[in-house]
């Protein structure tokens, strides 16, 4: 059962009087529980693809079916709700709100979902516990190491129990050891059933995925599958 289906997706940008085809006829099917990496040089369209899958961006044409539902034509609010429920983001620069504690950062998506305070509290505690951050719950992001920050970000991305986890260069701002830790965490989550999509230009990192897409000029240039 595919969780993500992209059908003839085009995404065009107007740059000056020129039209740039950031995504050019993408057809892609990703099954639930897949571990996919998207690689390619910068400007190849890999981030645009990730944003599109994450409903942060809309296709110029084509269809995007998420969990069996065509989400291409959803309104902004419906897309926001879908994003909140089914998609988790992990960013290269963590994107933690600096004035909020780790726990409050993790709580944000639950707050936006309108969940009750008690329910939120227990979910946040669970999510932090799972990432061994319970003792860091009240720390502000600037009191945490890079690896810890990314773990808070992962806790935030997974607290809503999304079907799909999107990671954009998740180790880009980390040293090698923390980076490997973070990858191990993400892969453990994938082992438990979450669909993991990692965008990276680091070949070594990309090769850990079972499915590897190589993008070039807005097209899927090459796909490798392991096992």
């Amino acid at each position: 059962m595919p969780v993500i289906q992209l059908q003839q997706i085009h995404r065009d940008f107007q740059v000056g009087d020129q039209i740039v085809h950031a995504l050019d006829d993408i057809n892609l099917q990703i099954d639930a529980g897949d571990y996919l990496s998207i690689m390619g040089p910068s400007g190849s369209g890999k981030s645009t693809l990730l944003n599109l899958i994450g409903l942060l961006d809309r296709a110029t044409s084509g269809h995007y079916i998420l969990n069996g539902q065509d989400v291409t034509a959803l309104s902004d609010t419906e897309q926001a709700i879908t994003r909140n429920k089914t998609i988790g983001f992990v960013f290269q620069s963590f994107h933690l709100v600096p004035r909020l504690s780790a726990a409050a950062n993790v709580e944000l998506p639950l707050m936006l979902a309108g969940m009750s305070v008690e329910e939120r509290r227990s979910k946040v505690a669970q999510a932090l516990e799972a990432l061994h951050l319970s003792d860091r719950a009240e720390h502000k992001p600037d009191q945490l190491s890079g690896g810890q920050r990314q773990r808070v970000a992962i806790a935030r991305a997974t607290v809503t129990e999304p079907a799909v986890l999107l990671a954009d260069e998740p180790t880009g701002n980390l040293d090698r050891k923390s980076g490997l830790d973070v990858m191990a965490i993400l892969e453990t989550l994938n082992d438990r059933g979450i669909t993991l999509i990692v965008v990276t230009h680091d070949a070594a990192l990309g090769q850990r995925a079972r499915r590897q897409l190589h993008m070039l000029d807005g097209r899927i240039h090459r796909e490798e599958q392991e096992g």
Partner: protein
Amino acid sequence: MRLFGLDVLRFAWGALVGYPSRALLMLLAMSIGVASVVMLTALGEGARSYVRGEFASLGTNLLTVIPGRSETGGFSPSTLMGETPRDLTLADAQALTRSYSVHRVAPLNVGSAEVSRKGRVRDTVILGATHDMLALRRWQIMQGKFLPKIRWNRAMPVAVIGNKVREELFGTEPALGQWLRIGDRRFRVIGIMGSEGRSIGVDVEETVYIPVASAQQLFNTSSLFRILVEARSRNSLPAVEQYIIKTLQTRHQGVKDVTVITQDAVLLTFDKIIGALTYSVGGIAAISLMVAGILIMNVMLVAVSQRTAEIGLLKALGADHRQILSMFVGEALLLSSLGAGAGLIIGELGSLALRQAFPVLPAHAPLWATAAAMGVALGTGALFSLLPARRAAALDPVTALSRR
């Protein structure tokens, strides 16, 4: 509703605490605006009640008769013959006492003369008055007695002096029973007026009071400055007014040549003037509230661009247009209500200080002004945050996230 109001408040509070200088700046602007509205209107109201009090101290049943007609009365024999209006005389005043509705009548003469005693000379306002003047104007005597109850046309060499006059002429020496010279006549001091008596146009402490007939001799005139008439009750005021006009018309060979002013008319005029002043001053203060609103808008716009990444993140986490909007409007509302609250406290404290400093001015901000100030503060807060909030809500999440 996907986002609880309480969450919006908590989030907004976090944002305010997270950027304290920004929050303080906005609080300051808002509170200055509200405080100035509260204080300025309090001042206006204080002035209004001061004037009311002044008039009440004059006696609200008071009518003032002045010679001459203040309105053009069409064709009359006097205009034809080019007559000047007849003077008011003591006999005119005497005639006015013959009505039951008239409680007291006080003929009044004013002039300026040199008052001297043992080589000390001072130019002073001399008021020719009668015994009833004291009660009629609600004055208080500090020492001795006021002018004696004698026939009005009888001159008598007695004087009541204001306390300041006493200080300057007598210093520390006792003044009661002593003689002083007004113009070229000698008068004996029988009373001293203290500061309790305050009155519009007359500084009680700097005036010398002598019997009205004496004053007429001193200034060599048979006319009066004006006649004060106190009606027995408020209800009888119109009747008394008619009575005065008719009586004097008869006495002046059928010519209506006096003007009767009621306290109400004067009070109303003052009330209008002060009311207009209060409104305009309050309006000016309200402009400062608008300025505060614009400041809020600017600071919120800066906040939106500072927090672009945060907004992008919130969108990525599933915040929709309305949630972002309500977060920023909520933040501005929280700020302006805190500012308005602080301003209210400052304004009330300021009014309190004013009352302490000037006890004669009961500076209390009227409820409408306080309510309007709060309303305008919240209104501008909401209104001027709408633009920044909409800008925030309209941010494209991809570009917002890639900033920084």
